[in-house]
């Protein structure tokens, strides 16, 4: 199967002199209609990766391909569901869902109709004229999902889409997203720090390492849907990924300690070589602090 979205050696550096290395040669493919979850230790650059796929950010090197062509900037067939919903508070629910279509220049009647269809799909028929502040978090995210779907994308990206919602509502919403995935056959990419969520929704889970993030492992999930979190395979899968992530965190810790030790060592060497200026002391104080 030809990949719908393809990441080829995506690297990303930030900051002055490219000091912060966020992503290191990340490569994986997302097949058409596939649901991929990306997990990783916190702060590893998962969201940066998603932003790059969305075209909101550019990789320092490497490439993201959509249907074989490189992505440079947001693509009309790739849509995004935001962590904090990203709704415009001054727009009603209906106007929010229409926003993407409005930007595409779809005539008013047509976009109204389309927006209503998607509101119905996410179970918000009857809430068209309300403002986001009148809705609960779960309902706001439904609006966010409807808005993302209304532009009829081929790929739906979700950036921690369930993390700002209470757990029970999130559970219901995950079931609905599974259903939407099944119905529409669209490609989904979800970034999350919730392992159960990642396994429950995905056809495959991409596990990233700590910064700079590399692909640590890609785990296909072949459990039948709807998935039971207490199923033995589910539990094993969860345990394995958790193990990988813990290992990563420990590695980071050890790396950090090793760096400290080597710095102390070099200071010690400098002092032993008779360096008389007081810089080494200052540096030692800095390191030990």
């Amino acid at each position, binding site marked *: 199967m030809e990949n719908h979205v393809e990441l080829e050696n995506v690297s990303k550096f930030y900051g002055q002199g490219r000091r912060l290395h966020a992503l290191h040669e990340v490569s994986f493919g997302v097949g058409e209609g596939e649901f991929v979850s990306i997990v990783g230790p916190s702060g590893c650059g998962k969201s940066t990766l998603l932003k790059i796929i969305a075209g909101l950010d550019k990789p320092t090197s490497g490439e993201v391909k959509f249907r074989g062509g490189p992505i440079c900037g947001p693509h*009309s067939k790739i849509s995004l569901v935001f962590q904090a919903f990203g709704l415009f508070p001054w727009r009603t629910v209906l106007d929010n869902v229409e926003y993407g279509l409005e930007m595409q220049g779809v005539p008013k009647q047509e976009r109204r109709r389309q927006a209503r269809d998607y509101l119905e799909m996410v179970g918000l028929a*009857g809430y068209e*004229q309300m403002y986001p502040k*009148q809705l609960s978090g779960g309902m706001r995210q439904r609006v966010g999902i409807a808005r993302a779907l209304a532009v009829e994308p081929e790929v739906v990206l979700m950036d921690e889409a369930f993390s700002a919602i209470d757990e029970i509502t999130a559970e219901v919403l995950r079931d609905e997203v599974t259903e939407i995935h099944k119905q529409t056959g669209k490609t989904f990419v979800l970034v999350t720090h919730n392992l159960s969520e990642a396994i429950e929704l995905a056809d495959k889970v991409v596990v990233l390492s700590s910064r700079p993030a590399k692909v640590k492992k890609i785990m296909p999930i072949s459990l039948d849907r709807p998935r039971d979190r207490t199923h033995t395979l589910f539990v094993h899968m969860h345990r394995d990924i958790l193990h990988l992530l813990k290992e990563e965190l420990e590695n980071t810790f050890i790396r950090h300690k090793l760096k400290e030790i080597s710095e102390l060592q070099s200071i010690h060497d400098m002092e032993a070589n008779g360096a008389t200026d007081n810089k080494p002391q200052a540096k030692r104080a800095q390191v030990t602090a």
Partner: protein
Amino acid sequence: MSVEKQKALTLSLTRGFFTGERFGNYLWCFPLLLGFAAWEVVTRAGLVPSSRLPTFSSVLVVFFASIQNESFLLRIGHSFLNLICGLFLAFSVALPLAFVAGSRNKFDLTLTPIIMLFGALPDLSFLPLLVLWFGPGNAAAVIMASLAGFFPIYFTVRQGTKNIPRELFDVTAIFKSDRFSTFTKMVLPAISPHLFSGLRLAYDFAWEIIIAIEIATRVAGIGSFIDGNVTSGSLQSGFAAILAIAIVAIVVDRAFFGSLESWTRKWA
């Protein structure tokens, strides 16, 4: 559920500008009327000489006569026009500058300290210079009003722009909004609560400045009318003019800014 919410929505929409939460109730009328009554009693009883304070009733008589007088109304119109021109000037300069300062940190660091420096100076200290350059006329009044209105608009819009969540810019990018739509459909509504309070402050400041300039430079307008009448001893006309300005200022404040704010209150 939705029917109820609909009702609540219509209710909040039909809340006119002299009802509902803005005035809450009419309790505020009582202390006001009490004040006028006390004024009347004190002056009638001769506790205050009429050369210092005329009776309230005589002020009202002159007021109602004045508002049928064309030249009196023209003077109010004149002051109001200067004020509006000044505010428009302030708005059209402050809004783009504040927007850029709010979104570009380097620009903010370059410009805002200078603006703060000027803002710290009393506006009226520039007046003699403006009169020197432009003469004691409308130009000086308009520029002074715009100077007074500039700072509140600049600082509120700048803050409002800084407060726009980063995510909303990503939303406009994801849905491929062009620069113009991003400004009109995202930035402007997002900063509107800040902008409206800035405009309201600017409006209040500008009124004060306009009256002060008219008194100081004798530019035709309601301020010089008050000054002229009070110094020539016709206090009733002076008070009538003050009353007229108060009514214009309050009605515009409630009607214009009130309705803008009731829009933002629906969603903010």
